[in-house]
């Protein structure tokens, strides 16, 4: 049986994220009309627009990193998670499933030449220097594989613990606690269980997660941007109207 495919978008914690999520979902429909969309949001935010644009709506709790919980709830086999504060601007979005190849998970990359926009990338570990290399802004993953399902659940649970101070390894700076990239790094680098996970990077990955904070003169994909990330320039707390 063919694997199901769809997008997961999480708009929670603040109403603005719900509005960003709606916009992202609508922009996906602009270029990929019949795609499957699962919207994860809180019951207090949902309105008719959410039900109209999404095929599936799942309610979540109010948590800063509900995105990870939402990722683990995906109803699709091949899932493309996209941060809510992104927008689709190219028809090549329909080709996203080809990026799965034979990987278990696919991310965009944090590289040295892009580091000028990262808040915290390098850090000390008891074994020496380390750095984050995977960016969780977008993630394509195969939920039909039990190991990937477990990974997504563990990523959420570990991040939850990390953020409420019930788990933290010795020898790591407290400033890293606010990053789900840390739990991602921990699981992929330190957990024996996940050492054989096949993790890929999108081809021309900037197309799939182009931070608007990048300077186009310095950092640009080879082809046109498909998904633009407005992360840095938005006032997430200020009501939109």
């Amino acid at each position: 049986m063919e694997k199901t495919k769809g997008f997961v978008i999480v708009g929670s914690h603040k109403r603005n994220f719900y509005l960003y999520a709606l916009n992202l979902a609508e922009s996906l429909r602009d270029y990929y009309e019949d795609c499957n969309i699962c919207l994860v949001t809180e019951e207090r935010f949902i309105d008719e627009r959410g039900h109209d644009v999404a095929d599936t709506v799942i309610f979540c709790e109010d948590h800063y990193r509900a995105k990870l919980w939402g990722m683990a709830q995906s109803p699709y086999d091949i899932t493309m998670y996209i941060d809510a504060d992104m927008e689709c601007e190219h028809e090549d979005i329909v080709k996203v499933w080809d990026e799965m190849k034979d990987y278990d998970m696919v991310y965009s990359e944090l590289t040295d030449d892009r580091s000028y926009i990262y808040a915290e990338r390098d850090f000390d570990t008891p074994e020496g220097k380390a750095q984050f290399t995977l960016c969780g802004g977008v993630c394509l993953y195969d939920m039909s594989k039990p190991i990937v399902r477990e990974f997504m659940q563990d990523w959420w649970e570990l991040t939850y613990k990390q953020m409420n101070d019930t788990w933290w390894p010795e020898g790591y700076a407290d400033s890293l606690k606010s990053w789900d990239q840390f739990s991602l790094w921990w699981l992929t680098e330190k957990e024996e269980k996940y050492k054989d996970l096949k993790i890929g990077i999108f081809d021309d990955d900037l197309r799939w997660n182009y931070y608007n904070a990048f300077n186009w003169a310095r950092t640009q994909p080879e082809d046109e941007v498909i998904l633009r990330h407005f992360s840095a320039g938005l006032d997430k707390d200020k009501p939109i109207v």
Partner: protein
Amino acid sequence: MSYRKWLDNAFWENEDRSQLNCILEMEDDVGRVTRQVMKLNRHDKEGNENELFNEVVDSVGEAQIDKETTDREERKKAEAEEHKQREVEHEKARKLEKLFNYKLEAFEVEEIKNSKNRKLKSKLRRAKSRIEVDLYSIMILQEQIGDE
């Protein structure tokens, strides 16, 4: 063993070659290396030749100083151009963020929010400027009013 030498990246400070910018590298008896940047005039206030200036020209060579001067000018020009381009792109990015927020505001207008016209709403979302956003917003509003 100590030494004293002029680095070969000396360049003319002005077109009439009356001033030279150069670096003197020195190593003392215990092996400590220091570098001193100097701006040397060809002549002193009385019009006498500057021996140090002549020493640099003899050591580095006029052709090398000419080359370094040209290379440096080109380098500086390219850097200025790159900086300018980055500023332009930075501005474009800020403008895009503002436009994104402006569109979200438009989508919160009751009539636009309730509109089922996907085509127009899609055009609004893809708008490249505020004026375009306004135009599609008005079209959606008109359609909504017409439906009432």
